């Protein structure tokens, strides 16, 4: 295995990159410079992650701006394609052929000679734990096996940079753990990874550095701690069904634990207290005490903001100056 030297140039550089599909915005004025390492590209479905990755792979041209990967333009760049591995987020392998044959064929496309390609394909299939099934047709593979075969074709030519689109999609917990282990091993040789996902916890197992993208815009970038801080800094909406929602709302406002309160109705027609707060930690600590003091009973407490999607929605509102 080759050890890659640290690059003086940025691994990835986007300079005011915009990509339009007719009148639909794929990515919007993204400027970012990433050093080598592992990066998670996080965003809800339709955020622009696939467009971002396609721009990285040179499969799309930016409508405006410049993209550089490992110091060069990725569009129709054969030299760069020798240094990058891509694991798409969708199937697309030839179903009727054996996994080994498929990987060996792609290695030949990578420039490997026939016998060497087959030998290397067998090695890499073993690395991803597919030795036993590599001679079977891909159509007989489970989802996890297909995912591992896709990974095998992406890492088979020992790329410097591995680009993964939803690498854990459809995998069970055991499959996810195995995939994480494989990718961590890949990174130990000093190689870089960019993995796109819409689930923070999936990609968190792989890296501590993230790019948050939504609505085609790069909303934030940073470490896991910074992302979690963002979660705390962004107002969180909480719905409380209680015996006395109005009194509870007034007390919370009085104690300055919430930014705003309003009343809503549940599906059953009951009054529900809907509050917005930036102090979720403090609120969760004080709420039990308050409830006891006020003699209020709480039947249900739920956050509308427990998904990454709502974080992105909030970040988008901040980005537009609505919050």
């Amino acid at each position, binding site marked *: 295995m080759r050890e890659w030297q640290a690059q003086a140039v940025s691994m990835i550089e986007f300079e005011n990159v915009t990509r339009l*599909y007719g009148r*639909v915005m*794929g990515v919007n004025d993204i400027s970012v410079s990433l050093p080598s390492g592992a990066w998670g590209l996080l965003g809800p479905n*339709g*955020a*622009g992650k*696939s*467009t971002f990755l*396609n721009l990285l*792979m*040179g*499969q*799309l*041209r930016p409508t405006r701006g410049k993209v550089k990967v490992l110091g060069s333009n990725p569009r*129709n760049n*054969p*030299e760069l*394609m*020798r240094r*990058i591995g*891509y694991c*798409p*987020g*969708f*199937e*697309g*392998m*030839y*179903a*009727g*052929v054996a996994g080994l044959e498929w990987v060996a*064929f*792609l290695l*030949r*496309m*990578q*420039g490997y*000679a*026939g016998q060497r390609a087959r030998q290397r394909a067998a090695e890499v299939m073993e690395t991803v734990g597919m030795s036993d099934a590599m001679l079977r047709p891909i159509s007989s593979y489970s989802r996890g096996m297909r995912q591992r075969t896709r990974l095998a*074709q992406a890492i088979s030519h020992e790329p410097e940079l591995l680009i993964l689109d939803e690498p854990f999609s459809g995998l069970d917990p055991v499959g996810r753990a195995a995939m994480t282990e494989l990718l961590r091993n890949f990174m130990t040789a000093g190689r870089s990874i960019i993995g796109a996902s819409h689930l923070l916890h999936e990609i968190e197992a792989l890296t501590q550095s993230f790019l948050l993208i939504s609505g*085609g815009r790069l909303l934030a970038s940073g470490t896991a701690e910074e992302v979690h801080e963002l979660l705390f800094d962004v107002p969180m909406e909480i719905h409380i069904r209680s015996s006395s929602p109005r009194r509870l709302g007034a007390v919370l406002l009085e104690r300055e634990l919430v930014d705003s309160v309003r009343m809503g109705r549940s599906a059953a027609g009951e009054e529900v207290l809907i509050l917005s707060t930036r102090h979720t930690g403090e609120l969760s600590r004080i709420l039990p005490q308050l409830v006891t003091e006020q003699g209020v009973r709480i039947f249900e407490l739920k956050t509308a903001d427990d998904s990454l999607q709502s974080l992105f929605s909030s970040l988008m509102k901040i980005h537009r100056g609505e919050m």
Partner: protein
Amino acid sequence: MSQVWAVFGYELRRNLTPWRIGAWLALVSFPVVIVLLVRFQGEIVTNMPRSTIDTVWSVLFYMLIPCVCCALGVFLNAAPAIATELEQRSWVYLATRPHGVVCLLLGKYLLAVVWGVTAAVVSVTLVTLLIGFDPLFTAAAPGTFGNDSGIGQRVQWMARIWFTMIRLCLLSSVAYGALYLLIGALFPRRAMVFCVAYTGVVEVILSLIPANINRLTVQYRLRSLMINWAEPEGQKEIRGNAFFRHVFAEGGNPEQILWLLLLTVVFLSAALAVARASEFTGASESDV
């Protein structure tokens, strides 16, 4: 170049399925079946003078094999070269390899030509033997079986027609393969429809319009070569006709071959340029 061969070999193995082999056999059999049908209507040809019979056979031979069999053979492989990869979403795996798009298209083009030419060679050989030695077809000839000079003339004619058709098949497959590859690159989602429409409108109708525009068709060049090679004695008479003068090229064989090769290079280069410039992401339209 090794990557082109890799694609060719891989695609060839994938093509060796019962359905594909069946399609290849159908291509081979089609001209043979048509000739057999004509054979059972033998009185039509036996009532004609020998020279006319040979001309009829040359034209029928040309229509059936270099035109239909070859064009169809390359069409089935070259036209959907990009479309099949897009449909099964395998495009991105190949396009993200060094020179992946170029190697993929050239490999598939090579396979299309080999597929069309092999079917045509077998078909030409079978049809030549069928019409060459069938007493019914030779009945009106000055010499028949049992007459040594007649057999000698017949074998000579068969050799000429076989060699002519093989050359035409090779040129037809090479040129039509490149043309269909280009149409497939321009309209990957409707490649087959556009190829059929183009062939009908341009290669069949436009090539017969006695105007300069027909000079840009493959059919015009192939037709002229056929007359030069298969009908060396009768071509003067054909070219003397006011209409035919405009549907057969006047230049020599090298000129026609050069034209065909030039068209092939232009079609192939354009197909590669279009595919390289296109953005086939492989993701579905909803994936942003």
